[in-house]
């Protein structure tokens, strides 16, 4: 089964939940952990996998054959992203705006457009103990994360459990991560920001018609609004992690909680069972 760990707000503890869930599940079942936050990937800091050779992920961008080009402007007119412009006697391509859709090549009447690879980032795979590990890295200055996430998911090996650590937010990269999963764990914190962004994340989950459970992190601030919201929405709360300086310190040093504080093993094992029940 494929389960994603997501949140609207950043820094709520997605990585904490993903790496600990993977560590506990992997005792009993073949497991894969995929860090889909290709803008700010952190799972590898905790799992310390041995990684293979980075594999580039590219988009196809147009190159104009100036011999053939008649400057008719059809490519520029057809581009929905403003990535091609005819300026005086030449055609300019703005690679960073190009979505790599290939429409310009389809409309060109003079066969003057060919395409080359423009690297967006890389994906890396390896093993962290028994866990099949994968993550991606968007190159600095590049905007498009989704193609890297899609490629990362496409090349993930089959395992009983596949855990996907999603990027924060509710935009396209989150949708790409959640596409085709069996269920979602939404990680939040009991703060006004946490609640506001949880609502947005629930909006995404409902749009995609996915089953979801909630993990409340840094509990114990006396804020009941998140609990109430979950009750009203019929969202089961599967795990509560209190605010505890020891947990914060373990996380700061990128140590896996269930290894550092073994009393947490049972809690994450229960989370795994509950998540399985939720999806079944």
């Amino acid at each position, binding site marked *: 089964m494929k389960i994603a760990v997501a949140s609207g707000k950043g820094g709520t503890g997605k990585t904490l939940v993903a790496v600990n869930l993977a560590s506990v599940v992997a005792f009993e079942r073949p497991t894969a952990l995929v860090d889909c936050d290709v*803008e700010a990937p952190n799972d590898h800091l905790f799992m310390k996998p041995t990684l293979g050779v980075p594999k580039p992920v590219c988009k196809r961008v147009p190159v104009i054959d100036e011999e053939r080009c008649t400057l008719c402007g059809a490519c520029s007119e057809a581009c929905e992203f403003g990535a091609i412009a005819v300026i005086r006697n030449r055609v300019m391509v703005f690679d960073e705006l190009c979505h790599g859709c290939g429409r310009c090549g389809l409309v060109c009447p003079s066969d003057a457009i060919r395409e080359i690879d423009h690297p967006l980032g890389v994906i890396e795979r390896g093993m962290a103990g028994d866990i099949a590990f994968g993550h991606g890295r968007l190159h600095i200055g590049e905007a498009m994360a989704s193609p890297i996430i899609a490629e990362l998911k496409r090349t993930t090996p089959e395992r009983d459990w596949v855990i996907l650590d999603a990027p924060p937010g509710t935009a396209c990269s989150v949708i790409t991560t959640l596409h085709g999963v069996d269920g979602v764990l939404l990680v939040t914190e009991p703060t006004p920001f946490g609640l506001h962004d949880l609502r947005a994340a629930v909006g995404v989950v409902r749009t*995609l018609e996915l089953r979801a459970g909630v993990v409340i992190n840094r509990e114990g601030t006396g804020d009941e609004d998140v609990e109430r919201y979950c009750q009203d929405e019929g969202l089961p709360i599967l795990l509560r992690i209190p605010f505890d300086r020891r947990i914060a310190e373990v996380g700061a040093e990128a140590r896996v909680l269930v290894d550092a504080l073994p009393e947490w093993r049972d809690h994450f094992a229960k989370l795994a069972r509950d998540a399985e029940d939720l999806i079944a």
Partner: protein
Amino acid sequence: MKRIVFLSGKGGTGKTTLASVFARCVEDVTVVDADVDAANLHLVFRPEIEETGIYRGSSVAVRDDEACTGCGRCREVCRFDAIDADLEIDPLACEGCGACVTACPVDALRLVERPSGEWYVGRAARHPMVGAELYPGEEVSGKLVSVIREKADQIAKDEGSKRIAIDGSPGIGCPVIASTTGTQVAVLVTEPSRSGLHDLERILGVVRHFGVPAYLILNKADLSESLAEEIEAYAGREGLPLLGRIPYDERVLASLRVGRSPSDDPESPAGRAMAEAIAALMEEIG
């Protein structure tokens, strides 16, 4: 006019909190909440909304089933797996590029604009404020950021604001780039953790890529002494000036909960340290 953007790479380090302190402590500011897919700054400032609008920045392919002959050319050219074997179009996967429209031999497809988010212009107690919320799953977060930044530029010009403060989103991709280009100062907010350091390295790469001078604020600095030292050493090596170390302080949350900037709480050590860090920034940038 100076544009100051608050960024972090990693989420949840305190961008919004520091941006709120900046807006409280500095005069003549127009504020932009550019974290359009998890906007929170309005929860602190509770602005009175003066104007709103729907942003239609993306398109989706729509088929005329009467005209369609089922030839499948659309599916062949789609690079986003948005058209399945039954030629159904998945609007969430559709990039709105129109390659299918071009490829269709019988003109059965067209692009339809779709609403992708809502923006607002408002006024908080001390400053004008602009923000937006992206609809779930939309991919034009960068374009929406550009739209609200243009509005903020106009307001700042009309009102003679000397500064625009931009609260950015986590990550390093599309909306972050749209928040960073054309700014004069980047304030990077991090926390003492391995993840915080790793993501700081990435966001510093981005702001330097765009030639924006950067400053660092270390938030929740006492949560790990050893990582705090490591991050300070990193900042030293990189020539990244440290504006302040903010202690972890539960009163920050208490302030945010009642819609107050932590710097307005005289009892809060973190609130004071944040105000001092912003004062240090103003010394530097004027």
